[in-house]
């Protein structure tokens, strides 16, 4: 059947959109299942090597090891320090630094 009304066309494209959303969820679910082994492998490496952090940004101590970063050096290593603009803007302040900021 040809879509005669513009609203038919619109509703069909909405349906396509909803379908795409479903595909996204489906793909995510399938990929998570497929990646289970990889995740297990990564977990194992973390356990064996006693790692504490994700290796995402290697340019500064607090970006390479956010969880190990210093507690009392807000200026040099504060995640929002301007000199560390690009990664500092992707990451938020770790909670232990925030606690310090609020005086606790």
């Amino acid at each position, binding site marked *: 059947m040809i879509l005669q*009304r*513009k*609203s038919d066309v*619109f509703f069909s494209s*909405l349906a*396509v*959109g*909803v379908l*795409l*959303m479903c595909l*996204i*969820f489906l793909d*995510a679910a399938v*990929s*998570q299942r497929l*990646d289970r082994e990889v*995740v297990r*492998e*990564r*977990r*194992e*490496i*973390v*356990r064996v*090597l*006693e*790692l*504490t*952090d*994700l*290796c*995402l*940004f*290697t*340019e500064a101590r607090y*970006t*390479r090891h*956010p*969880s*190990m970063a*210093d*507690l*009392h*050096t807000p200026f040099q290593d504060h*995640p*929002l320090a301007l000199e*560390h*603009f*690009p*990664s*500092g*803007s*992707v*990451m*938020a*302040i*770790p*909670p*232990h630094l*925030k606690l310090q900021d609020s005086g606790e």
Partner: protein
Amino acid sequence: MGALEKQRHILDFTLSSLGRRKGKNIALIIVYTFVIFLLASVLFLTDSLKKEASQILQDTPEMTVQRLVAGRQDLIPVHYIEAIKQIKGVQSVTPRLWGYYYDARSGANYTLMVNAELNDHAGEIIIGTGVSMRNATSMPNHAVWKNDVLPFKTYDGSVVPLKVKGFLSSSSELVTSDLVLVSEADFRKIFPIAKDHATDLVLKVRNGKELATIAAKITQIHPDCRPILREDILRTYNAVFDWRGGVILMVLAGGFFAFIILAWDKATGLSAEEKREIGILKAIGWETSDILLMKFWEGAAVSLTAFFMGIFLAYLHIFLASSILFEPFLKGWSVLYPHFRLTPYVNGYQIAVLFFLTVIPYTVVTIVPSWRSATIDPDSVMRM
């Protein structure tokens, strides 16, 4: 039945009406799709990183103890172990030796870490994928071979050649990309760390419930120590990749509000032509609510189209194209950047956030300004 048909009639008209300014509306949808695409990309990326971190850091050390001197992390004396071992519930305490090594040759920061298994193989190292790629000397992107020798500069200026014995799997790149595993002897050769000092201590405890008590006892015995629990680490990653916190959101919000202003301007600046049309529609029997319904569909049509396209493209971008557009931004100054493929992670909350941040405001911004025009007297068109 009649009500539904009425909605469809009004939608028909709205779409015809939008079709008249095709170029403008398509441009609007493209810009809008891009805004949603960026927002969704950030959300997908940070959420899947968060998810990834929470999964793979499940087995991170239960407790790490570092020493603070003058406000900075400092080397911890190995004899601290003795007292900590005595605390009830502590199963084992092992010193960790690790630190950052700046490799002038490749211009990158590595994380050097002592691995006990290498202690009998001094002079040999195991490297992460990032290190391997970075040391491709002859050919670009050509990885280091096994048994290649990499020179490491020591603190006193001499050079220690270390032979590559193996590689950390590339699937673990997300945690190991910049790692260089060395023997303790080589580590102490490169860094001036005395035998009786370590970087930090790692604890195993018998009962996870006692962690807090043990941590309190440690700070009692050694007030200069800072215990970091596994749950602290997990919490850190939860907070660090919170899309609401990053400056990136502020940047996006800026762009987003600029777009709102644009949309507002477009909608409030109802042209004389549009006002005349509303007058005509009212004169021929459309109610105020019908006009608003038309405007609702106008906003919904544009924003829903952009919404679905933006989310779909963002998904492709983050999970199939490895966030290629964000790469320069994410990399920052890191010379080593892991090339990992994230496990897609989406949930209803993300979709709802995007919906309430994009579709709803746009639709409202389309309807509200037409309110005044919608209530004009139907005879105005006669007087024009």
